C-alpha cells in the first residue's frame, strides 16, 4: 500500500514548507482542490487544511461561542472538502466561497441537530452545495423521468454519439454521473455538460414532435 510513504510526505511537508496565507491566491487554492479531486493528494489537502482550518475555527467560534463545537464544524467542513473536492467548479466561484457555503450548511445542521427533530430539513435541501446531482444547473437535470422513460427511446438514437453514450449509461443503465465519468474516463464536468446538451436536444426533439 502507498499509505506509508504518503504519510511521510505529508509530515515532511508540514514541518518544512509553511506557506503564508497571503500567498494563497484563488487560483492556487483551486489547483490544490483539483489535485485532491484527481489524485487524492494528501500533500495538496494538507496545504488546504493549513490554510482553511484556522479561518474556519475563527468563523465557527464567532458563531457558536464554544470551542469544541467550533472544532466540530472545522472537522466536518474539511472532511467534506477532502471527499467532495470533485464537486468544486471554478466557473461557479472561488474555493474560499465554496468552502464558506459548506461551512454555512454545516453550521445550520449543527444548530438544528440540537433540536432533536425527526424528518428535519437539512441545509442541503435549502442550499444544495454537495449533492452531486444538484451540483450543476438544477433546471437542466430536472427533466421529468417519466417523460424520459416513455419517450426517450424514440429520440435518443438521434443524439450525437458522445451524448448518446452518456444518456444511455445514466438513463438506461442507471449509472450516476460519477460512475459514467469513471467508466468512460472523462471528467465529471464533461459528463455533466454532455448530459445537459443531450437533454436540451431531447426536449427540442420531443416538443417538435408534439
Amino acid at each position, binding site marked *: 500500500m502507498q499509505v506509508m510513504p504518503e504519510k511521510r510526505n505529508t509530515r515532511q511537508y508540514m514541518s518544512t514548507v509553511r506557506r503564508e496565507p497571503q500567498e494563497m491566491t484563488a487560483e492556487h487554492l483551486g489547483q490544490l482542490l483539483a489535485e485532491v479531486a484527481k489524485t487524492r493528494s494528501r500533500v495538496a489537502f494538507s496545504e488546504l487544511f493549513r490554510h482553511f482550518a484556522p479561518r474556519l475555527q475563527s*468563523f465557527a467560534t464567532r458563531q457558536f461561542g464554544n470551542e469544541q463545537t467550533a472544532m466540530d464544524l472545522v472537522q466536518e467542513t474539511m472532511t467534506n472538502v477532502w471527499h467532495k473536492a470533485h464537486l468544486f467548479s471554478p466557473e461557479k466561484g472561488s474555493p474560499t466561497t465554496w468552502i464558506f457555503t459548506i461551512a454555512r450548511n454545516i453550521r445550520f445542521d449543527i444548530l438544528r441537530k440540537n433540536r432533536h427533530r425527526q424528518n428535519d430539513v437539512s441545509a442541503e435541501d435549502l442550499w444544495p452545495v454537495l449533492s452531486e446531482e444538484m451540483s450543476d444547473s438544477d433546471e437542466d437535470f430536472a427533466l421529468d423521468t417519466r417523460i424520459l422513460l416513455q419517450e426517450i427511446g424514440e429520440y435518443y438514437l438521434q443524439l450525437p454519439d458522445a451524448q448518446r453514450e452518456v444518456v444511455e449509461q445514466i438513463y438506461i443503465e442507471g449509472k450516476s454521473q460519477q460512475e459514467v465519468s469513471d467508466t468512460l474516463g472523462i471528467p465529471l464536468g464533461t459528463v455533466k455538460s454532455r448530459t445537459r446538451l443531450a437533454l436540451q436536444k431531447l426536449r427540442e426533439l420531443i416538443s417538435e414532435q408534439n
Partner: protein
Amino acid sequence: MSKIKFHPSEELLVNYVSGQLNAALAVVVGTHIDMCPRCRAVVHDIEVHLATRELHQTSPVAEPQLTAMLESILSSEAPAMPERPALQEHVVLESKSFKVPPSLGRHAARMGPWSKMPGGLWRSPLELSAEERMYLIYMQENAKLPEHTHRGNEATLVIDGVFHDEHDEYRDGDFIFLDSDQHHTPHTADESCLTLAFLDAPLHFTSGVARLLNPFSSLFFR
C-alpha cells in the same frame, strides 16, 4: 417571460445566504432566486463578500490538535449523504399541473392536501417543522382573498399567473414582503394565480445589523 418587478431586499438576501432565515422563508426566497437572474447575481456577490469577510481572520489552533484532525480527516470514510425526498418538477391541483422551480420542488413531497376555501381559493400547507410552515395558495379567476391580518411578516411569491392588490399587479417571480403594519387585499382578474406564501413571527426583520448576531433559535420564536 415578463420581467420580475419585485425582489427580496438585500437584507433578506444576506440573511438567506448566511443561513439566518426561518427555513420556510428561505424556501420562498430561494424559489424567487431560482426564477430571478438578477437576484442570482446579487446572491453570488453576497456569497463572495461574506466568504471573504467571515474567513478572513484566523484563530490559533494548537499544533497537535491540528495534526490530529488532519490525520483523522485523511483516514475518514466519505460522509454519507442523507436520503431526501425526490425533487418534484410539478405541483398538481385537480386537473392543473404547475411547473415549480427546484428550490420549491425539493420540498414538494411535504405538501399537505389542498383544501378548498370560499371565494375560489385553494390552500395547501407545506410544513418543514412545527415552526416553519408556508402555504401554496391558488386563486382562480376573479377570486378575492378575504381581508386578513397577520401579526408577523408576510412573504408572497408568485409562482404562476397574476394577482392584484390596491397597490400594483404581481406576476411570475414577483416577491412581496409585508410587515405587520402593512395590509393588502389580493385578488385576481382574468387570470388565475398560484402563490407561495410565508407568515412569520412578529419579532423578526425589525432590528438592523444586530439581528445578524441574534442567537439562531430566536428566529423560531412565535
